[in-house]
C-alpha cells in the first residue's frame, strides 16, 4: 500500500514517492507563503515553479513520452499532501492534472501525443475553460462554437472562470463542434499560446481559494485542427474526465481537512501537557473530528485506487462508479466544512484569531469553496437523475 493513497493515515506517514515530494514542497515553499497568496489573491508561483522542477506537471504522462508514468492515485496523494499547506497551490496541481489525465486517456492522435511529450519536456501548465457565461457549470452544453475562417478555425468564448488562466501555457475549452451544431454536440479544444488571447472580464476577489486566480475571461484563439480531441467531449467527460476531476478535487478537500484537524490535534495535546492526568474537554471533540477525517480519507482512497484499477476497464464508465465519484466529491467537501469548523470549536479563540499557530481563517474560507467548486447541488441532481435509470444502488 506504500505507493498508493492510504485511507487511514496522513501524508506525513504514508509516503508514496510523489506524496513526499509534494509534502516537502508544501513545507518548504507553498506553506510559508500561503497566507500571503491568500491575502493578495495572487498566483502561488513559487510552489508551481517547484512542482515543475520536480516534474510533477508531467507525473501522469507515460514514461515513453518523457513523463513520470504515475497513477492517478499517486498524483491524488501529491495534491492532498500539498493541500495541507496551501489549498490554492494544490488546486493548481489538481486542475492541471485533470487535463493531463484526459490527454493521456484520449489524446491518441499524433499531435496530442507530441503535446504530451512537450508538457513533459517543458513542464507546460494547462488551464481549463469549460464553464461559460450564460451556461454556468452545466458543462455538457456550449454556446460558443469552433468557427471556420479563411485558412483555419477560431474560437471565441465568454469564460465564467479560468483558474490561473494568465499563467497557463495552454487552455482547454469545450465548444460546439461547428456554428450549426447543437449545444450538446461538443468538442474539446486545446488553445495554445501565442495563438491564444485572454481578455479579463471579471476579477477574483473571493471568500476563499483566493490563490487560484479564477478570473473571468473572453478567450479568443486560433484553433489548430490537431489540437481538437479526436473523440467528442462527452466521451472524454464520461470516460475518465468526471472521475479524475472529482477525485483530484476531493484530494484537495481531504488535505485541507487534514491541515485543520492537525491544528486541533496540536491544540489538544498542548492542553493535555498543561493538565497531565486529565483528558482535556476538547479531546472528545477531537475524537469525533478524527472519525470524520477518517471517512473523508477512506472515501478518497477507495475512489482513487478504483480509478487506477478501472483504467483499462469498461467499469470506468459504469453508472455506479460515476455516481460514487460524485458522492466522494460531495462528501469530502461537506466534511471539509464540518472538519474545519469543528477544529475551530476545539481551538476556540486561538483558532478564530489570525496570526496564532492555530488560526483556521484560511482553511475555513477555503473549505466553503469546495462546496461551490463544481456545485454539489449539481452533482446530487445528476445522481438523482441517474438513480431513476439505475437498477442497483
Amino acid at each position, binding site marked *: 500500500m506504500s505507493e498508493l493513497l492510504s485511507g487511514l493515515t496522513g501524508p506525513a506517514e504514508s509516503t508514496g514517492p510523489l506524496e513526499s515530494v509534494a509534502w516537502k514542497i508544501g513545507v518548504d515553499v507553498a506553506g510559508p507563503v500561503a497566507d500571503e497568496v491568500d491575502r493578495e489573491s495572487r498566483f502561488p508561483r513559487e510552489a508551481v515553479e517547484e512542482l515543475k522542477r520536480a516534474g510533477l506537471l508531467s507525473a501522469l504522462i507515460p514514461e515513453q513520452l518523457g513523463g513520470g508514468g504515475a497513477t492517478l492515485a499517486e498524483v491524488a496523494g501529491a495534491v492532498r499532501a500539498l493541500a495541507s499547506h496551501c489549498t490554492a497551490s494544490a488546486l493548481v496541481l489538481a486542475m492541471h492534472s485533470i487535463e493531463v489525465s484526459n490527454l493521456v486517456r484520449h489524446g491518441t492522435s499524433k499531435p496530442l501525443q507530441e503535446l504530451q511529450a512537450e508538457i513533459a519536456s517543458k513542464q507546460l501548465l494547462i488551464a481549463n475553460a469549460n464553464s461559460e457565461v450564460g451556461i454556468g457549470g452545466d458543462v*455538457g452544453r456550449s454556446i460558443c462554437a469552433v468557427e471556420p475562417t479563411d485558412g483555419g478555425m477560431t474560437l471565441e468564448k465568454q469564460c465564467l472562470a479560468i483558474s490561473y488562466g494568465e499563467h497557463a501555457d495552454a487552455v482547454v475549452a469545450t465548444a460546439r463542434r461547428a456554428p450549426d451544431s447543437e449545444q450538446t454536440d461538443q468538442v474539446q479544444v486545446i488553445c495554445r499560446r501565442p495563438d491564444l488571447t485572454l481578455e479579463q472580464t471579471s476579477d477574483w476577489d473571493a471568500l476563499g481559494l483566493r490563490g487560484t486566480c479564477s478570473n473571468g475571461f473572453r478567450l479568443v484563439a486560433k484553433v489548430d485542427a490537431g489540437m481538437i480531441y479526436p473523440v467528442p467531449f462527452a466521451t472524454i467527460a464520461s470516460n475518465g474526465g468526471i472521475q479524475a476531476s472529482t477525485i483530484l478535487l476531493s484530494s484537495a478537500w481531504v488535505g485541507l481537512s487534514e491541515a485543520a484537524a492537525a491544528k486541533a490535534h496540536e491544540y489538544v495535546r498542548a492542553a493535555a501537557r498543561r493538565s497531565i492526568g486529565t483528558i482535556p474537554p476538547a479531546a472528545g471533540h477531537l475524537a469525533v473530528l478524527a472519525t470524520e477525517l477518517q471517512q473523508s480519507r477512506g472515501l478518497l482512497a477507495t475512489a482513487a485506487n478504483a480509478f487506477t484499477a478501472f483504467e483499462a476497464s469498461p467499469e470506468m464508465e459504469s453508472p455506479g462508479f460515476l455516481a460514487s465519484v460524485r458522492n466522494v466529491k460531495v462528501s469530502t467537501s461537506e466534511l471539509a466544512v464540518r472538519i474545519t469548523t469543528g477544529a475551530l470549536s476545539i481551538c476556540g479563540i486561538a483558532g478564530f484569531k489570525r496570526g496564532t499557530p492555530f488560526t483556521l481563517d484560511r482553511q475555513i474560507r477555503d473549505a466553503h469553496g469546495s462546496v461551490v467548486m463544481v456545485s454539489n447541488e449539481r452533482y446530487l441532481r445528476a445522481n438523482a*437523475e441517474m438513480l431513476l435509470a*439505475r437498477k442497483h444502488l
Partner: protein
Amino acid sequence: MNPEIRKLIAEHARLAVDVGTLADDASLYEAGMTSHATVNLMLALEAGFDVEFPDSMLKRSVFESVTTITAALAELQPQV
C-alpha cells in the same frame, strides 16, 4: 420496433430537429439530446417495451442512435 422507437424519441429526446429527418444511425446527441433527456427516453423505452436496461447498458453509446437502441432492445427481448 423502429416506428415505436422513433415515436418515443420524438416524445422524450427533446431534439432540436424532427426525428423523421434523421437517419437510423444519426447521433441523437449531435441532434441535441441532453443527458437529462436520455434518462427520460430510457424510462419511456422501459415502459413502452416492458424491458429493464441493466446498469451495464446505461452507457451513452447504447442510446446514441435509433440503430443502437434497436440493437439494445433486441438484446433485451430476444423474441422480438
